[in-house]
């Protein structure tokens, strides 16, 4: 779908909504073509591609709203879409504070040029298979089995509303990850994510995971307890994901369930967390799913709570403008930061480890879930490479451990931040993070592997 086709379709939906009596309306058109090649046991076992579209209409009737979506774009389906959304709106109760939509001047907000790469858009199954084979070859070198995926996607997001918002653009994403398992209990992980598939190097992803697999062979048991830790980038992603999910949303603050209090110190002075859709280090995103331009938000600045992210509704309720972090309507979950990053420090990764007298090096976390959400107390497991460090040196692999740890308290314990960062995929989008050293992390039990 071209930009003109996307805008034309969105405007046609607005026109139909207006003709059906909408006092305001918002149309969101999402079109994507995505492919994923998946491998396990050193062979490709799943290999998929899809072409999809959805048209979403928010129909506003005074202080009421209704939302409908459709995967069809023919005239009859669009009319049915409008009828459905209108019927929902008219059947709904009035919202006390009305329906908030962002305002625009009719000019088009485009996507950042850095959000799109032609090489990713044209990546074919042969190229993904080649990447998979490169990772598998690295696994073969260390007698390990590789599993993982290599995906490429192109997505066009077009948004128009009756208040003059017009936004359209295309983004691409390439993502590769692998988990390797060695013959004697060794496991390893590596991942890369980028706008441009040409900037990724599947063989090096394979080599990183293979090296970690070899190094973690025959892990030994270690006692649970409080340990200083170095978290590699893959683990740090989970910390930001959870903090974003539990705390950095204006709705979480409004409902009293967030740890965030603006101006309150929660982290070490080394910790600055930002959401910035313009940063090409991540996956750039110029506007949100309400068509509002994204503004950079300093969530934690030098350890002190800065702002939180807003969509049109949460912003209107406190008399400010949106920061451009809205999700597609209807959205009972509130706004979320989808371009988070932890600013780099000045400590190379080997010096992060070198600063541990006795502690653990953690590659990544698995199956994490909040236990006490307001303090961001989270439980989860280590996975794919956990190592004992003594005297600043890795002395050997240990079996996986369960932890139960407040991620807010962890921010306060950050004693060093890595100088290099990776762009990785979390459940709140692409996140750019360095490795970190933290003074104490509470491990509550062990497992057998």
């Amino acid at each position, binding site marked *: 779908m071209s930009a003109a086709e996307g805008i034309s379709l969105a405007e046609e939906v607005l026109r139909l909504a207006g003709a059906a009596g909408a006092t305001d309306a918002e149309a969101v058109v999402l079109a994507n073509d995505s492919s994923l090649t998946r491998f396990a*046991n050193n062979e*490709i076992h799943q290999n998929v591609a899809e072409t999809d579209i959805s048209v979403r209409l928010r129909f506003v009737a005074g202080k009421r709203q*209704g939302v409908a979506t459709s995967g069809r774009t023919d005239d009859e389906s669009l009319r049915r879409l409008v009828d459905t959304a209108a019927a929902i709106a008219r059947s709904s*109760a009035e919202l006390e504070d009305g329906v908030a939509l962002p305002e625009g001047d009719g000019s088009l907000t485009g996507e950042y040029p850095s959000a799109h790469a032609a090489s990713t858009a044209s990546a074919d199954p*042969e190229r993904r298979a080649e990447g998979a*084979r490169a990772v598998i070859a690295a696994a073969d070198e260390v007698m390990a089995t590789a599993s993982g995926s290599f995906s490429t996607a192109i997505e066009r997001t077009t948004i128009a509303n009756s208040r003059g918002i017009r936004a359209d653009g295309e983004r691409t994403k390439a993502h590769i990850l692998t988990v390797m398992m060695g013959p004697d209990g060794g496991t390893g992980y590596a991942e890369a994510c980028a706008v441009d598939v040409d900037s990724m190097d599947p063989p090096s992803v394979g080599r990183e995971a293979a090296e970690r697999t070899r190094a973690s062979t025959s892990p030994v048991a270690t006692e649970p307890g409080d340990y200083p830790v170095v978290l590699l980038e893959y683990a740090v992603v989970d910390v930001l994901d959870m903090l974003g999910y539990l705390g950095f949303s204006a709705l979480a603050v409004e409902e*009293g369930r967030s740890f965030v209090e603006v101006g309150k110190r929660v982290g070490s002075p080394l910790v600055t967390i930002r959401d910035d859709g313009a940063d090409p280090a991540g996956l750039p995103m110029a506007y949100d799913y309400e068509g509002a331009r994204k503004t950079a938000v300093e969530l934690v600045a030098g350890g002190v709570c800065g702002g939180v992210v807003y969509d049109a509704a949460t912003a209107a309720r406190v008399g400010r403008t949106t920061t451009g972090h809205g999700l597609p309507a209807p959205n009972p979950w509130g706004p979320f930061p989808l371009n988070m990053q932890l600013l780099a420090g000045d400590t190379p990764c080997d010096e992060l480890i070198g600063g541990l007298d006795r502690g653990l090096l953690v590659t990544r976390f698995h199956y994490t879930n909040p*236990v006490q959400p307001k303090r961001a107390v989270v439980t989860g497991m280590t996975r794919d490479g956990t190592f004992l460090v003594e005297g600043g040196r890795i002395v050997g692999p240990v079996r996986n451990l369960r932890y*139960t740890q407040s991620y807010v308290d962890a921010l306060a314990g950050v004693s060093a931040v890595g100088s290099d960062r990776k762009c990785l995929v979390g459940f709140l989008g692409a996140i750019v993070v360095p490795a970190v050293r933290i003074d104490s992390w509470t491990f509550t039990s062990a497992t057998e592997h």
Partner: protein
Amino acid sequence: MDTARARGASYADARIVHRREESLTVKTGRLEAAAAGETEGIGIRVIVDGAWGFAATHRLTPGDIDATAARAVRIARASATAIRRPIVLDDRPPAHGTYETPVAEDPFAVALEEKVALLVEADVAMRGAARLAFTEATFAAQRERKVFAATDGSLTDQTITHVGAAIEANAVAGDDHQRRSYPDAGGAWGAAGFEFIRGLDLVGHAARMATEAETLLTAPACPSGSATIILDPSQLYLQVHESCGHPTELDRVFGTEASYAGTSFLTTDKLESGFRYGSDLVTIVADATAAGGLGTFGWDDEGVAAQAVPLVRDGIFSGYLSSRETAPRIGRRSGGAMRADGWNRIPLIRMTNVSLMPVPGMNLDEIVADTDDGLYLASNRSWSIDDRRLNFQFATEIAWEVKGGKLGRMLKNPTYAGITPEFWRSCDAIGDERSWRMLGTPNCGKGEPGQVGHVGHGVSGARFRGVQVGVRGT
């Protein structure tokens, strides 16, 4: 399928799926979300040169479908450059027929105003009963019509309807956030019509949820140590899901989910050796024919008829959730557990209705009366389990002390933890059929790209001895 065969596919199947959805969320007195949606498309799966390929499109013109079949074949040829074991499917008979979820009252035909009014009434009842930070009342319905055809002549046509609803009361004081939800964390779901929602009596349970959430703020914390615990069905279903359902998925056992969800401790040698999974009381069955479950259907998404598969029998590990590709590798035929999340996803091994079977003798109340000293835990709040499904830790919304066979003080922030087979071996009481309920979850995640599954779990409550409770972190 003709296009796929003409281009070299040795096998092909196609699913045309139309999905209709509706969801309502009332949050603290306002209708925060009211939405309806529909999606339709075709997914085509092929085997070429012993390797899989899959392509899907929302465009349903003959030309687009042919192009999608050709794309699937091209993808399969790329797969074939990196396979070590050609695909072999079991020899299930061709599938023919229709299936439809029994529905007494079409949830899409009930007036929207009536559904909203029900949620608003429950929301008002919660907020009128206690001081709460926020409340939520939700309803959702999904209907999927899917036509499946395969090159072996199979042709099935199924219409499956699921509905669910929930209320949730949240109380906050300082750093303390307490939640109570009904019927179960995330809501009760079933394969049924709106009669299922009416039967939940959301309004009748609202005040209790509200007062319990508020009371939890000042309740003592769950103690730490080793304890006898009784799990209410609202928690036990998720225990079954995480610690039996997932590890019995045969794709996990064979490592094909290792990069995302993980593997399984239930390796195939344990099937041959008669591994003791739980106590003699523990029998767990995956039954896609069970009435009202989210995993109930006529045929799975590769045309295998719905059936009941024993996973654990009298405590002994006895079977897997399987597919046409994985079952022959252990000398069996598919148990019919391949399910796809819509037209644009491939089928994966998913749970059907994985249920802990009732044990005659005591209902849940009688198990409580039979317990001198313990904890009664209800409604899941948090879950986590390792990548082989051994080490788990769960939190529930609420617990009560059990003293002398009676429920006592309310306790907040309850947690318990364990190792899967050790935990199930410590089970010394399971409720009988009087306490048995079919529950389920509509948000089971698996696969890359991600898929969300609707799966059912029948449970009646159970008692476990010597369980670690009150896990303290920082």
